[in-house]
């Protein structure tokens, strides 16, 4: 990933480096084609939103090396807070989005603070437990969240973008609006990964002890990474709320966290394009397989197991490794 080291070589830059240099425009190009190649616009929006969650998750899991099982909490908080801001307080759309992202980020900061000092399986369990706590809060506070029925009554039908009115009920227009936010988030993540901070989180993933001996405040860096990851996932949550016009309680459940982990692994953890590829593959499988059997999870689960066993780098990671090995 180090462009500097590669530029020292006289050899032509490998495909991976050429893709990495243009990863944001390439992602945007691919995403803008999605509604035209997928069976439905709703599926395309799902790929966008879950892809973005996986991208946010990948920042923590793939690049910093921390396996969180609680990212549903940030995704869900973003969705709920946006929904409540619109439905209950009539907040303008952009303010509602900002509240959702800020709330998810603040929650990530707190959960990060509580979980960062534990390691390995304990870290995963602490994040899982804390996110389930958020789930039960949402379940109990039904006067705010709608409890088991989910949050309803905040349909956004129109969006005013600097004098240009977007019909939010038109699936294609809605897709491109959500894509614009996703593109901005992708650019932001790419920016983080390209920065010196990106080198530090990779170093921590590779060898925490050595990173600390080099002079890095490992805990602080992890906390920043955790919070940034939570912010991206919260943004995905706010977009999800706009898209569905309801927030199902399930969004906070650990099933959602597990799905985020699966998508990221399926596509390829630690690669920029991987999470989107993973979300795309996962949701497409769900969409296609559930047409002929309600037990689609058996098929998707089997595919996932095969990937973990035989292609641990995921779809994108394997593709790149195969290309590099030729």
């Amino acid at each position, binding site marked *: 990933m*180090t*462009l*500097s*080291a*590669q*530029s*020292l*070589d006289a050899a032509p830059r490998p495909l991976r480096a050429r893709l990495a240099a243009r990863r944001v425009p390439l992602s945007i190009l691919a995403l803008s084609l999605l509604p035209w190649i997928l069976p439905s616009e709703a599926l395309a929006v799902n790929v966008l939103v879950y892809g973005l969650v996986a991208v946010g998750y990948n920042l923590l899991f793939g690049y910093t090396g921390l396996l969180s099982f609680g990212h549903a909490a940030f995704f869900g908080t973003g969705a709920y807070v946006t929904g409540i801001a619109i439905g209950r307080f009539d907040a303008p759309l952009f303010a509602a989005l900002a509240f959702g992202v800020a709330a998810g980020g603040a929650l990530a900061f707190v959960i990060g603070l509580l979980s960062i000092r534990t390691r390995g399986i304990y870290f995963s369990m602490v994040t899982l437990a804390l996110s389930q706590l958020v789930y039960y809060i949402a379940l109990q506070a039904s006067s705010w969240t709608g409890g088991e029925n989910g949050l309803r009554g905040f349909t956004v039908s129109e969006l005013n973008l600097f004098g240009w009115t977007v019909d939010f009920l038109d699936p294609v227009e809605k897709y491109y609006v959500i894509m614009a936010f996703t593109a901005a988030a992708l650019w932001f993540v790419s*920016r*983080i990964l*390209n*920065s*010196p*901070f*990106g*080198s*530090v989180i*990779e*170093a921590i993933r*590779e*060898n925490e*002890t*050595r*990173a*600390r*001996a*080099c*002079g*890095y*405040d*490992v805990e602080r*860096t992890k906390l*920043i990474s955790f919070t940034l990851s939570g912010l991206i996932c919260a943004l995905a949550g706010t977009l999800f709320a706009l898209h569905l016009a309801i927030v199902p309680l399930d969004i906070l459940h650990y099933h959602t966290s597990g799905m985020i982990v699966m998508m990221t692994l399926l596509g390829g953890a630690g690669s920029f394009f991987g999470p989107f590829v993973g979300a795309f593959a996962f949701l497409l499988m769900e969409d296609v397989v559930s047409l002929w059997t309600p037990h689609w999870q058996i098929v998707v689960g089997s595919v996932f197991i095969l990937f973990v066993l035989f292609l641990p780098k995921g779809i994108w990671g394997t593709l790149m490794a195969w290309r590099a090995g030729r």
Partner: protein
Amino acid sequence: MSTPLLAVENIGRRFGGFVALEGVSASFEPNRVTAVIGPNGAGKSTFFNVLSGVLPPSTGTMRFKGRDLAGTPQHRFAHLGIARSYQITNIFPELSVHENVRIAAQAFRSRYEIWRDRATLTELDDKAAAALAAVGLAHRGSATAKFLAHGQQRALEIAIALVTDPELLLLDEPTAGMGPEETKEMVALIEKLAAERTILLVEHKMKMILGLSDRILVLHHGRLIADGSPQQIQSDPEVRRVYLGQNDGYA
């Protein structure tokens, strides 16, 4: 006598009821090579872990250039000018050799600067290249670190420590697992570094220590039992009894 670079007084470290280190006092002058020896379990690694901030001492004080190190978190030690290598090779295996050293140099920049492109920090590349050249790895910069030979990985670890220009370099068994040829190269490297740095090393290879060190500390059961020049240590009856006599040459 000038202010010592590092002075430890009555340092002790317990793990529950086990006393790994007790009552160790010593001070280290600049630009000297000091070896720490002792049988297995003597407390050498604990001593090094205390000196490099990995473990806070249970008792005693440490002063680096007159500054009390009590309560200093481990990652600050590198910033103060104390760098170390580990007994078991400790590098970033999946990163390139160049990036291994570059990331260490980057730690001394004060900010992460998310808006900046990491590739624009070319002064880090220069520093990394210089450190790699100093340990004889200039030609391996683009290799992935895990593919280096063992001796080269040990040298890389020293380059990682060296790139931050530390005043005190702690080397924990720098020749562990090396053959005679690699050991010779490492000794030459340490001799070169010793000209302008204070070096503390843990080693088992007695011949190497006697030739390389200005001074030797001997630990036994967590206590400092001898402290002197190689000649003094060699003729110390207590040291001969607990250490040298047992097995001539290697422990």
